[in-house]
């Protein structure tokens, strides 16, 4: 049970800057997901949090206590690794018990014979066995207690790794891409299981992934990282709806957000090929900007005189992803319900519109800028849909 503060953490390997003054703070009980493409520094940040790597600068606080220079075992953290990192020569029960044994029994009491003879050590061991049994029951591992890791499936190993972490009741859980070695179906299942575990334990979780779906579905806080920098920390809904910059907007969301170059006209109007947008861009006239439109905010209407041509339709069942070639050789992707896309075929001419108030504007450097809309026009368009 602890809040977590990361303050100005910097790390480089030789001349390569891995983390560039990363700061993030989350309250007790948060589920913070560090998400970004591979090589963005998210795993390094997690390893620094764990104390497995030493930061070049900056501080880390867990529950208000400065842990920047403490050994991993002193930080009151537990970690789940991508490869599970179970001890191959120990059984499931032993794997889960080992962190407790190492913490609660002094060295001399851990000797195989003494621990059985000393009443105090025996009492401690009994207590540990009870806790391990509890953890195994919670994760459905009881019937596997005497198996070794090689005899387990991927999902079972994953659960043992979770058990080894949670049995200690740490202040913070660190999880490094724990689902990436599982098959797709199991991944969805374990995703729900980890989220449920977080809800039940109420402990602070820090979760590293490159999978935006994991980030969006499990977290209370999503931190998007790229090239060693933290781009935005916000709730999943906010990250999606109000990305702070173009990189975040492009990273989160599948299919990717459509990005169109545009120019700011007189009075802040957006001038771009093939699309009419209401609203005023908060940028001087003549500036070049980029307009981002999520696929589900793009409206297609079959129209023989329309500017767009449907080039491909992907049917996923509940929705269609429709690619449209429009003026300026840009391809936009729209997400439609099967009903909305019923009349469309590859080659169909379509007119394009954008759900009012939903287009996002970014300046030439990718930073988000204001894009206000006229309310009346928005309402009109919405009902027309």
């Amino acid at each position, binding site marked *: 049970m602890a809040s977590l503060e990361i303050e100005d953490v910097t790390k480089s390997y030789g001349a390569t800057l891995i983390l560039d003054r990363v700061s993030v703070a989350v309250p007790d009980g948060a589920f913070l997901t560090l998400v970004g493409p591979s090589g963005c520094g998210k795993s390094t940040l997690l*390893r620094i949090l*764990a*104390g*497995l790597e030493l930061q070049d600068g900056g501080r880390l606080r867990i529950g208000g206590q400065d842990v920047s220079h403490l*050994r*991993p*075992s002193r930080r009151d*953290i*537990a*970690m789940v*690794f*991508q*490869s*599970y*990192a*179970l*001890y*191959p*020569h120990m059984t499931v029960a032993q794997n889960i018990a*080992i*962190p407790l044994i*190492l*913490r609660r029994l002094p060295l001399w009491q851990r000797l195989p014979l003494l621990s059985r003879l000393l009443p105090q050590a025996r009492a401690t061991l009994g207590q540990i066995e009870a806790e391990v049994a509890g953890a195994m029951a919670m994760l459905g591992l009881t019937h596997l207690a005497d198996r*070794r*890791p*090689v005899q387990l499936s991927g999902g079972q*190993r994953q659960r043992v790794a979770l058990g*080894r972490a949670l049995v200690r009741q740490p202040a913070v859980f660190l999880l490094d891409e724990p689902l990436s070695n599982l098959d797709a179906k199991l991944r969805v299942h374990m995703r729900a299981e980890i989220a449920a575990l977080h809800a039940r334990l109420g402990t602070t979780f820090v979760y590293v992934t490159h999978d935006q779906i994991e980030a969006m579905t499990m977290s209370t806080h999503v931190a998007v990282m790229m090239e060693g920098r933290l781009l935005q920390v916000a709730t999943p809904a906010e990250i999606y709806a109000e990305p702070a910059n173009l990189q975040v907007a492009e990273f989160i969301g599948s299919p990717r957000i459509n990005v169109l170059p545009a120019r700011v006209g007189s009075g802040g109007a957006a001038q771009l090929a093939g699309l009419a947008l209401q609203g005023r861009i908060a940028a001087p006239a003549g500036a070049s900007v980029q307009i981002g439109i999520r696929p589900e905010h793009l409206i297609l209407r079959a129209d023989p005189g329309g500017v767009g041509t449907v080039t491909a339709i992907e049917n996923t069942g509940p929705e269609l992803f429709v690619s449209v070639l429009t003026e300026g050789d840009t391809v936009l992707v729209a997400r439609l319900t099967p009903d909305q896309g019923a009349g469309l075929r590859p080659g169909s001419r379509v007119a394009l519109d954008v759900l009012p108030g939903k287009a996002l504007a970014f300046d030439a450097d990718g930073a988000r800028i204001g894009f206000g809309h006229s309310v009346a026009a928005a309402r009109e368009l919405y009902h027309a849909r």
Partner: protein
Amino acid sequence: MSGAHRLGRTARIARLVVLCLGAAVMLAPFVWGLAASFKPAAEIWSGSLRLIPQTFHGWENYSAALSRAPFGRFLLNGLIVCAGILLFQLIFAIPCAYALSKHRFAGRTVIFGAVLVGLLIPVHVTAIPLYLGFARLGLLDSYAALIAPFTISVFGIFLFRQFFAAIPDDLIAAARVDGFSEWAIIWRVVVPASWPAITAFAIFSVTSHWNDLFWPFIVIQSTELAPPALGVVYFRRDESGVDFGPMMAATVIVTAPLVLAFLLAQRRFIDGITLSGVKG
């Protein structure tokens, strides 16, 4: 289809024949020695090639060998020396290899380079300086002289480093998070995951030192300190080297424990490979 199958079978038979021939060539001296240890002298020198002795003279040969030289003592010496060498080699090589493979520190590549260079230096080069050193220390003709020069095995360091490098870093990191000390990580996480390498190294180490004649010949004078190979030499010297029956019996006595140990270790070796699923 069946033609291809038949071709596969002929190829397999050919391979088996070649392997059997190779094995026969390798084993022939041992088989001959074993057969000779059961034959009387006249039959050994008869000139005809016959494996099964016509007159069974084994009892006489073996009792002669055992009565004329303290072979029990030689075997015990071999055990003490080999166990001592292996123990120290493991104590030194495992932590060293762990540091070289899992820690980043200044001079690591230089030290590993030195290990590789050490692999290139034959034991004979250092024999004279070592002999002089032991003479100066007054340690000649002792177990210490037999064990000490081999306690640090660059081959062991090299072998373990390569093996440890394949142990996932995550496993070490998990052990650190769980609260193992570095020392405990070595003996309780790395060593149990490395049994195949340790067994392989033990086989190399024990066979080479059990059979070593060169170094014991230099530093040992007393018969009661002689390891097995040197014991056979003493035996031969004492018996003026003509009595081949007891001589071969002596050789069999000296070699048998090693062969048995190897057969046992081999099973363990295979177990080790199948049990250690480090990679998950």
